[in-house]
């Protein structure tokens, strides 16, 4: 038998497309078409109200219903979503976290009503809350109760849905928030430990090896694909060691590092978007090239990632990348191609050492739950360094800071600019459907189920899952389930990380901006003060954080309150704080509804300060927003933050009738 060939070609990884939008029915159709194209697993994207536990008629849900994912309000929606899909054969991944127990309960309830037992189900609930605090933003409850809910899902599935992956410990979102490879490894491992420690308190010790074996990861792979591959090998190594040393897992099979991937999206650009295809292919190599650290499941973003939501055709293109890699190339015919490579071993060693040091720093702060504030500010600092390197040209991004000459792209030539636009009527339809659902169900059963849910939530020792499944059967809605838990657990706001972020290296440009801020501030009589606001449920905080930190670094006073504010909260803050300018950031696509609403509330409150906005704002919408009173619109191609700052200072000067900079 030859050592450099496998006796038999490997089976490919699970191929998925992260998809879902509008209604359950529309998404079901999309899933069936995707499966027909050779996709082998489902990956459900939920809309933000569903992810954060609000019904579609809640104030915070405005503009978000069915937008970035499918709206699932109750078991009727889940039935429609899964209609005609054989649940005992399908492997379904659900990107769901704060409300993971609830969506799993709906899934189990629907399977039961279709005569399929939990033991036959396979799939994944993402169910990782720490990375929601650190990056992703769809948390709902405070840390203590959230860790308990995670542990409940793990404890329940280990017993009743044994083929389920109850949690995906995520490092993907950390890299998307600026993490270095070392941070990605260290924080993911620290997070996994916090989860295991929480589960340990809720299951019999004898089950811990099984629990360990059920923990899987969801990682990222950036365009530096050699180092990124090394990162995955480093993670395998550390995970195996943790299993052995901290959790006494003897069976090596249970210590295997199992992971799924979404490749890097932060590095995908708005300018020359076709270049993103090359990036995606190379990133896919990072997670498939070496057999000993190959992904179990892969989903790839699309070429138009930085423009807006992908259409079915865009997603098909990305699925075909996976299929070419798996079925046309010889990738799956060989044993591990990096075995014995000095370069690879050296890189792994470097990363393991760095990660261990960072894990120690987290441990010194009492572990991942206690260290959320620390980790968040470290991520903001790393991201700031990344932004600086792009601005200064130390980090090349083709089409952004080098090779910017381009022909017009035919890909974006259509009326919509090459993206999917969700029908705005979906929200009204979903609200009407929800009202019908509420009218037709047995209210007594619903009330009883919610009472029981609240009791279990307060009990601390009981598992939340059985009461959630009963509530699902009774016709409880997503918002009601979450509100019952909010009643028991209270609300929470995660740290923003910006206050602690260290000041970056200074430069001539910064100095000159500071002088300009000083000059305008003197003329204003007070230091230039800006409010950076994030209206709606959108959790994309990177842009707002970087704007806030840079604002401080050029000498402004910056009020930043984090994500998920209502327009009235933003208006109240602007009024009370006496800010000179308001900057709003929206990436989730709800700008058409929310921006005009914020402006209306500001003006009603008597605040006449200029408003600038940034985020994923398609050119087609920018004009209408300017019409509604927006002074300037910034999108990802405006990567030079100092330029944005100069604009803002100029805008304030102009608004107050001060002379422009010399």
């Amino acid at each position, binding site marked *: 038998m030859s050592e450099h060939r496998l006796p038999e070609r490997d089976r490919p990884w699970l191929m998925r497309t992260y998809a879902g939008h509008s209604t359950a029915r529309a998404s079901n159709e999309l899933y069936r078409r995707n499966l027909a194209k050779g996709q082998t697993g489902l990956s459900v994207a939920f809309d933000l109200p569903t992810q954060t536990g609000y019904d579609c008629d809640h104030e915070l849900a405005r503009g978000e219903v069915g937008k970035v994912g499918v709206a699932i309000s109750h078991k009727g929606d889940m039935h429609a979503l899964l209609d005609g899909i054989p649940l005992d054969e399908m492997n379904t991944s659900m990107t769901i976290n704060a409300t993971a127990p609830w969506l799993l309960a709906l899934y189990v309830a629907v399977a039961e009503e279709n005569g399929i037992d939990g033991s036959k189900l396979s799939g994944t609930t993402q169910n990782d809350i720490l990375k929601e605090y650190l990056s992703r933003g769809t948390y709902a409850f*405070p840390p*203590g109760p959230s860790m308990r809910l995670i542990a409940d899902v793990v404890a329940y599935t280990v017993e009743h849905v044994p083929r389920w992956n109850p949690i995906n410990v995520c490092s993907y979102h950390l890299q998307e928030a600026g993490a270095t490879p070392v941070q990605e490894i260290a924080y993911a491992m620290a997070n996994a430990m916090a989860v295991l420690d929480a589960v340990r308190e809720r299951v019999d010790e004898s089950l811990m090896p099984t629990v360990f074996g059920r923990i899987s990861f969801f990682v990222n792979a950036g365009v530096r694909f050699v180092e990124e591959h090394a990162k995955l090998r480093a993670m395998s190594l550390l995970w195996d060691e943790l299993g052995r040393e901290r959790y006494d897992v003897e069976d090596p099979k249970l210590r295997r590092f199992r992971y799924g991937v979404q490749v890097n999206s932060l590095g995908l650009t708005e300018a020359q978007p076709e270049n993103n295809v090359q990036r995606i292919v190379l990133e896919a190599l990072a997670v498939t090239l070496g057999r000993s650290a190959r992904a179990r499941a892969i989903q790839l973003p699309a070429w138009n990632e930085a423009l807006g939501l992908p259409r079915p055709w865009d997603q098909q293109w990305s699925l075909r990348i996976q299929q070419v890699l798996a079925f046309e190339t010889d990738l799956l015919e060989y044993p591990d191609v990096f075995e014995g490579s000095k370069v690879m071993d050296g890189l792994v060693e470097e990363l393991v050492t760095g990660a261990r040091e960072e894990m120690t720093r987290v441990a010194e702060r009492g572990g991942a739950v206690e260290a959320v*504030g620390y980790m968040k500010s470290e991520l903001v600092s790393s991201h700031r360094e990344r932004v600086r390197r792009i601005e200064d040209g130390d980090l090349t991004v083709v089409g952004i800071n080098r090779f910017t000459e381009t022909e017009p792209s035919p890909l974006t030539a259509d009326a919509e600019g090459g993206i999917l636009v969700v029908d705005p009527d979906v929200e009204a339809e979903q609200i009407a459907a929800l009202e019908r659902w509420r009218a037709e169900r047995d209210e007594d059963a619903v009330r009883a189920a919610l009472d029981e849910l609240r009791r279990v939530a307060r009990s601390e020792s009981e598992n939340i899952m059985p009461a959630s499944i009963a509530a699902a059967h009774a016709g409880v809605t997503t918002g009601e389930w979450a509100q019952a838990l909010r009643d028991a*657990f*209270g*609300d*929470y*706001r995660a740290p*923003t990380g*910006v*206050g602690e972020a260290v*000041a970056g290296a*200074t430069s001539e440009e*910064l100095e000159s901006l*500071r002088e300009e*801020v*000083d000059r305008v501030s*003197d003329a*204003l*009589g*007070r*230091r230039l003060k800006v409010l950076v606001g994030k209206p709606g449920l959108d959790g994309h905080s990177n842009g707002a954080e970087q704007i*806030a*930190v840079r*604002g*401080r*670094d*050029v*000498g*402004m*006073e*910056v*009020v*930043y*309150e*984090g994500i998920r504010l*209502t327009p*009235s*909260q933003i*208006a*109240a*803050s602007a*009024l*009370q*704080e*006496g800010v000179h300018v308001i900057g709003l950031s929206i990436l989730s696509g709800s700008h058409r509804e929310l921006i005009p609403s914020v402006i209306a509330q500001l003006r009603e409150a008597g605040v006449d300060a200029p408003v600038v906005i940034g985020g994923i704002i398609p050119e087609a919408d920018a004009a209408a927003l300017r019409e509604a009173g927006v002074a300037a619109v910034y999108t990802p191609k405006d990567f030079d933050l100092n330029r944005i700052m100069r604009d803002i200072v100029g805008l304030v000067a102009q608004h107050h009738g001060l002379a422009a900079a010399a």
Partner: protein
Amino acid sequence: MSGAELGRRLRERDLSAAPAALNLVEARRPGGPEEVAALLREVSPGALGGDAPAHVVGITGPPGVGKSSLLSELVAAWRCAGRTVAVLAVDPTSRRSGGALLGDRARIAVDPADRGVFIRSTAAGDTLGGLAASTRAAAQALAAAFDVVVIETVGVGQSETDVADAADTVAVVVQPGSGDVLQFLKAGIMEIPDVLVVTKADLGNIAESAVRDLRSALTALDAREVEVVAVSSIPPPRGIDELVAALDGHRAATDVAARRLHARRRHALADFAAEHGERGLRALGGRREAERLLDSLDPRLDVPSLRAALEENAAR
């Protein structure tokens, strides 16, 4: 709107005057001081016919101990009791850039439609002691209109001394498991606060032992009357009603008028000294003499008037 007009509105307890009043008080525009003086004159004890009604509370302590989270609960409790609240949250200024990130209000949950709460963040600027230059004036202005005015400042060792000048009651907030406040107290680096608060009581044992340690330190310092309250600001909140009672209790036991009068005279002198330096003081016959002069002036005068009186005397 003029300073006098804003002051009048505040005196009539028109809370909607607060944002503009703060914009004015914070301004360093030419002509600013006169307008601020006009505003403060309208809310002086003389104009009010007595001391401003508010309870001015200072909440101070090391970074990240949970001051703002605690305020979130306190504000809710005060609002429940029908009291209107203004919060002045002071954050440090970056030495490098002069800019600041103001993040306290993120932790103070309020209903944006509630007109009875006002929160303003300010950067400390280049002043020591964590108190923005304008904060004292801001507190005086708001104290005419609101039932409670809270000043949140960061630091230990200096900030509580500074805030004591602006507040009727100072609560120092202590992180369980960190000994800095305890050491500062014992070493006498820090003045004994009016109330001590141990946060994060949900952390259990370490909070309890922090309370014990502080109590025994207070006993040793012969300050047994200072209350130590353990609170938790994450759900379910704990100790909030006790803290409200302790703060009210302190105020009831204090001669507020005397404390404020003393503070106003100190401010006037500090402002004068900052502006005119040692030469100015010499012109008044030295610090002692200046204090004596202040003590002889009408107790109902506001700070700018007191300062004007000092300047007049120095020029004589």
